[in-house]
């Protein structure tokens, strides 16, 4: 054994040590001095337990997990939570029927299960979800993808929903995964894109083995199916325009991650799809009723070895604050996640290694991934939800575990990221229970899938919701972000879609300029706070705020105070909400 072989682990702790210690008396959960996120799932009352319908047969549809996200379904100004569930697939189910769950935010850091009253407790084997005001009536509607027919829940505006899938003609019969709303044709109505995974039924399941060990099959065990794209007709119905929009010669791939963003800044929202072990898609919106698939010539089809990776989640975000949307993709273990930097609005460079992401993520199997500024320093960081796909991976690879830690990368502002994830699991004693409770949100080791971002406690920093396979979700409360200043902008379209999805927001503080696009999807099977959140460091005011709506109209505000939440109605003034 060489000298010092095991003595270099300080490297892993590096970013961790840099975090400023904060202990907040406001939190009733013990907080370690250098903690960034606290696991508050239990105290928040999220009792949801996910099931993947594990049958012991390792059915192909068991491992993708289910997602969820944050949205203000009742319009009371705080974020509620929706969680998608799987289903029991064998006959020996113990009369337990898992279902999706909606939690209403009580406004005091706790949640109440309102699923039944709201009417969104689907029992179909669910995968992903997204939200958007598809009917422009001022409340957020909910679309759920399933292993089975997908569902659209129309928000009735009275805290209840109606399943209007059939009427709206959006019952995608394929195995939908991630999905997102966006106004692709700029007509003021939200269209809907759904990534589809594979042509599979449990009846045609095949057994896969690796070195004699029964494992979950890879995607190529089953044929891929084309994704689905629905155009909103503006009358409460949609038309499946998949074949019109996609290139005629496009080969279907195993779609998992979806993110919309106007990467070429031409005013037409584009789309990136992460495919599993297949080439990824970058659909450039021509603005004339179709997409061009330009991933290869844009440098975002493969990794830097020219090879397909097992793309899981993806997100557009401007991590270098140059006004151009960059991309990140989560991938399989031993592949590394990818960071693509937008070079000139038509070509991306692979900055995975130089960003510092490669070395760390190589050892993890990534799913949910999202750019967000957790510390409000004005630079978008990255969170990744991890967890292996094979429940018995440890039999094959002793050094790999099924549950894995999630990762948080802090953007250092120079094109690089530091891993600030907690190095070890940390607990505190719970005298009531006489047990040790894990509270450090970044030391949890679970089989994570989805990751949604939002400020659920309205305290000015972004929190995280992680969905896990066969486990409860994790609500991770940010306990450091609001040491820096921030603003949040809720956009309300008038001629543009009411949710403001696709609106591009520019915030100027001194010489520092930041951009966000309002997104309904991104990450993996998840949806996020539709309010655009900006950390502005120690800046005392926002010198300029610009909103470019999807129809090209621009609204401006100047000299706005920090640490406030604003509402921007298209064509109107930008005003504080509270």
């Amino acid at each position: 054994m060489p000298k010092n072989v095991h003595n270099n682990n300080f490297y892993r702790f590096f970013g961790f040590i840099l975090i400023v210690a904060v202990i907040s008396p406001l939190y009733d959960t013990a907080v370690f001095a250098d903690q960034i996120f606290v696991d508050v799932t239990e105290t928040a009352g999220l009792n949801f337990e996910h099931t993947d319908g594990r049958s012991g047969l390792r059915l192909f549809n068991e491992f993708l997990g289910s997602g969820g996200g944050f949205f203000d379904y009742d319009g009371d100004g705080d974020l509620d939570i929706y969680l998608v569930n799987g289903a029991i697939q064998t006959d020996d189910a113990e009369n337990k029927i898992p279902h999706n769950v909606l939690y209403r935010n009580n406004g005091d850091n706790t949640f109440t299960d309102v699923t039944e009253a709201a009417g969104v407790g689907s029992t179909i084997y669910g995968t992903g979800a997204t939200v958007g005001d598809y009917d422009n009536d001022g409340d957020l509607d909910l679309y759920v993808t399933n292993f089975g027919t997908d569902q659209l829940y129309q928000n009735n505006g009275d805290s209840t929903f109606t399943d209007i899938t059939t009427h709206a003609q959006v019952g995608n019969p394929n195995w939908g995964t991630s999905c997102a709303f966006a106004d692709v044709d700029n007509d003021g109505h939200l269209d809907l894109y759904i990534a589809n995974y594979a042509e599979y039924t449990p009846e045609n399941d095949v057994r896969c083995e690796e070195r004699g060990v029964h494992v979950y099959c890879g995607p190529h065990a089953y044929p891929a199916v084309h994704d689905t794209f629905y155009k909103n007709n503006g009358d409460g119905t949609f038309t499946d325009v998949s074949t019109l929009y996609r290139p005629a010669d496009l080969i279907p791939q195993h779609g998992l991650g979806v993110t919309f963003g106007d990467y070429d800044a031409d005013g037409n929202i584009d789309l990136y799809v992460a495919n599993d072990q297949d080439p990824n898609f970058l659909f450039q919106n021509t603005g004339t009723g179709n997409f061009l698939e330009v991933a290869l010539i844009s440098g975002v089809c493969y990794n830097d070895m020219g090879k397909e990776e097992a793309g899981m989640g993806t997100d557009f975000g401007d991590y270098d604050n140059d006004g151009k949307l960059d991309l990140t993709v989560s991938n399989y273990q031993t592949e590394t996640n990818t960071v693509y930097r937008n070079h000139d609005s038509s070509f991306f460079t692979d900055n995975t290694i130089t960003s510092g992401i490669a070395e760390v993520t190589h050892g993890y199997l990534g799913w949910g991934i999202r750019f967000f500024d957790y510390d409000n320093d004005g630079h978008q960081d990255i969170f990744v939800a991890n967890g292996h796909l094979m429940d018995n991976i440890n039999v094959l690879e002793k050094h790999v575990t099924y549950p894995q830690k999630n990762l948080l990368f802090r953007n250092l502002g120079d094109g690089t990221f530091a891993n600030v994830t907690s190095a070890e699991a940390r607990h505190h004693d719970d005298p009531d229970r006489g047990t040790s409770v894990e509270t450090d949100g970044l030391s949890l080791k679970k089989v994570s899938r989805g990751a949604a971002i939002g400020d659920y406690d309205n305290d000015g920093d972004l929190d995280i919701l992680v969905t896990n396979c066969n486990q409860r979700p994790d609500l991770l409360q940010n306990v450091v972000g609001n040491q820096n200043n921030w603003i949040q902008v809720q956009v309300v379209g008038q001629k543009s879609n009411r949710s403001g999805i696709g609106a591009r927001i520019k915030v100027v503080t001194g010489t520092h300029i930041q951009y966000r696009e309002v997104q309904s999807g991104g990450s993996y099977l998840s949806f996020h706070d539709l309010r655009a959140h900006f950390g502005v460091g120690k800046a005392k005011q926002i010198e300029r705020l610009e909103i470019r709506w999807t129809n090209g109209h621009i609204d401006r505000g100047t000299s706005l105070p920090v640490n406030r939440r604003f509402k921007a109605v298209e064509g109107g003034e930008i005003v504080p909400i509270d």
Partner: protein
Amino acid sequence: MDAGRKRHQMFAKRVCGVLILTVLLSLIPSVSRTETTSAFQEGVEYVKLRLYPQAVDTFKSILSQQPTHVDALFQLANVYKLQDELELAIETFNKIFTIVADLKNVPTPTKEQIHGLTHLALAEIYCKQSKLDIAEQHAKEAAERCPTDADTHYRLGYIYTHQAKLDAALAAFKRTLTRNPDFPEVYEWLGLIALMRNEPQQAVAHYQTAIEKKPYVQSAYYNLAKAYRLLGDTSAAAEQLKRFHQMKAYYDRTYAIEGALTEEPMNTILRLELAEIHLKHKHISAAVATYHALIRLHPDAIVGYDKLGRLYMDLNMSQRAIPFFLKVLELNPDVVEAHLRLGWLYTKSKAFDKAEAHLQAAIKKMPQLSLAYHGLAEIYTQQGHIQKAIDVYQHITKIEPDDDDARKALHNLERLKQSSQITR
């Protein structure tokens, strides 16, 4: 059914790189006894043929008799590594350190070399396990103990690249090239570093060198296209992407077949298809290796010897082709085409008696085979036996009245005969 996931992991080893440690008997000074040499070589053959279970059995058998057989232990560990049994591989490689330390009558430089190569293998494994800090320590040890070995410096450069320590990586790659200027992978990494540093012109130069040295690697074309794109030369980028697509299709197909062959090593059809694909892309050495694997696995497979003979014929390597056709005839003396080809090959090398014997054998089996007669006529012509050649051509025109070549040759020979008679 094989698990697609695992295959993909092998397919997309970015951090694990492309370098396959090919430490064979000749690289490790033998510290073992000769009685196991043939078994050891058999084990190595199994490794080459990717018959890993057989290789494991062979090396284990050797080790049961000679527990300190370092070569066998090294190869056993190497097979575990190739099978992705990484923990077993680490454990086995680590045993080598102990055994070598206790070996007597082994000179220190030899021990150092064994230590170095073992560290190198461990570095590769820890790369696979995403433990680059440990891999780095092993690679450093390897480079220290085997400073003249290009692979050790390559591995360090590779690790430093993935740790984003680009200056250190460049220095390591430079040391690699000092020791082995023909190391194509190094130029690829130099190209990638240039791309990372936004130096597209340098990247172009490095990738062009990489392609020149090894034209079968898709990533070089892909990244060359990216470099051109950064330079604003979109047509050059498009051209390289076209080549990338061709190479990727080639790679994907060969990769799929190789994967299938791992499960079905005795599948002749697949192996032949693999060789044909290599040939189609002019990857001759890979085609040759595939055919050789075929005949090692199927010593009676005539098609393998025949394909190798033809391949060497196409390469104008007559002397290398001949033994394969002879083997074809040894397995089946009735293969007329082998006689024909041998007739042609021996004629080319002026071994006219042998050539004639094979052509006559062909004629004996197929009396109407005009090609064989053509060969005979050629031999006689080259030997100056004009009349004998004329007789043969006349015979051809009888059995193949429409054979214009025979008529022309006959006409020319008759004129030659007449002119020589006049001269006389």
